[in-house]
């Protein structure tokens, strides 16, 4: 992966599929880290930013993962490095055409 295409989840435009490149677990409190992990937000997961909250900072964020929507804070999203998922590698849950 090229470093320059990697950015954090918080800054993604709404509705664009991205793949998690790495998660800076040390930035997260351990309980929160475990919860994100349990929800499947980990290296390799394909996510899509669906909604931003109200008020300044547009916090919290709603993230689609598979067929699930998860709310998390901007500070969590800042710890999640992502890259463009690209059309051909989109996970089946997001791409109906490729499902067998």
């Amino acid at each position: 992966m090229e470093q320059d295409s990697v950015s954090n989840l918080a800054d993604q435009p709404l509705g664009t599929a991205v793949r998690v490149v790495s998660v800076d677990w040390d930035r997260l409190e351990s309980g929160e880290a475990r919860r994100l992990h349990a929800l499947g937000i980990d290296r390799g997961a394909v996510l899509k930013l669906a909604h931003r909250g109200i008020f300044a900072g547009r916090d919290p964020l709603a993230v689609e993962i598979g067929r699930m929507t998860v709310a998390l804070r901007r500070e969590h999203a800042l710890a999640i490095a992502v890259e463009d998922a690209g059309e051909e590698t989109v996970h089946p849950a997001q791409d109906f055409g490729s499902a067998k």
Partner: protein
Amino acid sequence: MTKGPLTVALVGNPNAGKSALFNALTGARQKIANYPGVTVERKAGRMLLANGAPAELLDLPGSYSLDPTSPDEAVTRDVVLGHQEGQRQPDALIVVLDANNLEQHLVFAQEIIALGRPTVVALNMIDLAARDGLVLDAKALEEALGVPVIETVAVRRRGLPDIAAAIGNVVEHHPDHAPLPAHVDMVERRVSARAMAKGAIISETSHRRLHRGLDKLLLHPWAGPPILFALLFVVFQAVFAWATPFADALDAGVGALSEAAVTYLPAGLLRDALTEGVLAGVGSVVVFLPQIVILFFFILVMEATGYMARAAFLMDRLMAGVGLSGRSFIPLLSSFACAIPGIMATRSISDPKDRLTTILIAPMMTCSARLPVYAVIIAAFIPATKVGPGIGLQGLILFALYVAGIVGAMVVALVLRRSVAKGQASGFIMELPRYQWPRAKDIAIGLWQRAWIFLRRAGTIIFTVTVVLWLLLSFPQARPGESQVDASFAGKIANGLAVVVEPIGFNRDMALALIPAMAAREVAVSSLATTYAVAAEDEDEAAEALGVQLARDWTLPMALSFLAWFVFAPQCLSTIAVARRETNGWKWPAFMLAYLFGLAYLAAGATFWIATAAGL
């Protein structure tokens, strides 16, 4: 094999539809209690197996894994592993999967199946999956998982007999020493979950169009919050407007009972105890059943539809401003019905400081027990005029009282998070469940449970307190020319307290109402009713509505001050008891009592003096 009825437990991710399946399998025969030593709700019911034998079914708290992040999840792990004190290890497990979210739910399912216990998988909400254009192959899933997979639709009772049959089968044919599968970690499980989900999905078309559309509107940064507040406003208007005919009917019923007692019973102490004590007291509380049912109806519907999590999402930023998270919003909203389930719902908050703060401010949310107090006072002192189309002044005042509680709670949270509960602001990670049409049966069961709890309170605590109060009010008997209330024990106690509350505008009757209201707030109404019934000069006056008597005896500033007191006063022994249990000691409940009484005193005093100065 096992002696006695089998124990079967439902496990699965949150929002897998476990509770709906539980309701469908057990009907209304449910027992709700707590696991010993913890405050996690234990929901148990009776289901019938295929051979007609009964089994006890447990509905375990939803979990994402056996590595718990909250007390709820810890109970699920301990019960499943047989480590929960006082709970036999379940003989069989039913893993509930949301058919729409296989990829996620299969991760936990594999973890459970790997335990090697007799297990059946319920592929639940298969109808919603079909609606969303998802066609699944249960057989493929069964092969991949190695345990029976049964398609279920809890609400239409589809698949229920198959579940019962499969449980009997797996328990009977389960080898005593099943070879445990090789240990795999979460990442490996996730990879295989993805593969299994892919293998089980035959075809997939439209993708949650309804879900997306609704979220687009309800989570819209500008449209979402006004919709939430409009909804809450409608709830409070409905609580007042819709309940009236039912409350009037109940009131008439109590009046008729009282008249019948006067007609058919010989005059004497027993008749007085029945009419002035029991019927005046308990009756005045029971008439609020319709309002409580309506409030709970809205809360249950918001939970069942999935809107509650959206409300938490919308409120998170605001809650973050006072050092809490959107997660606290749900316990706080539940506290509008009753602080007890609200405080218990704080278990889902993992951060201890966050949780403590939420527990401490929960009693400030206007619970349904305050409604009787508010309703009586508002009806007696606030004219039923319209201040705008569809907006009544009475409903507006009620709304203002709710807002006062919320604002007070937010200010206190801000202070607590910077003092006694200081700590890093916590995060907010929460699944937003799919929208669902609420199931009438589940709502009905929920309403019935809440109504029954309320009526049981009326029949026990409130009954006892009103009878004791009546005795204290009736003895010693007044000499001719002396007021009965003045002569009674209760009057003497109240005279002592009246000195303390006089500066905030309370008269002796109000002081008297505060004492028994410690048992439960709504008793304030029944004690006022009992006091005025005992004090009445004749039968006609005694039969007058409480509101008429209040309007004659109290001034408007006094009434407003009484309302302000009840916004803050921690007048509920059960709440204090729950706070003690949840915080493991008397320190925090004592703190809660002190600060809430202080606030109540200040608020009532300020209200009284400002209203008096304003010439109201």
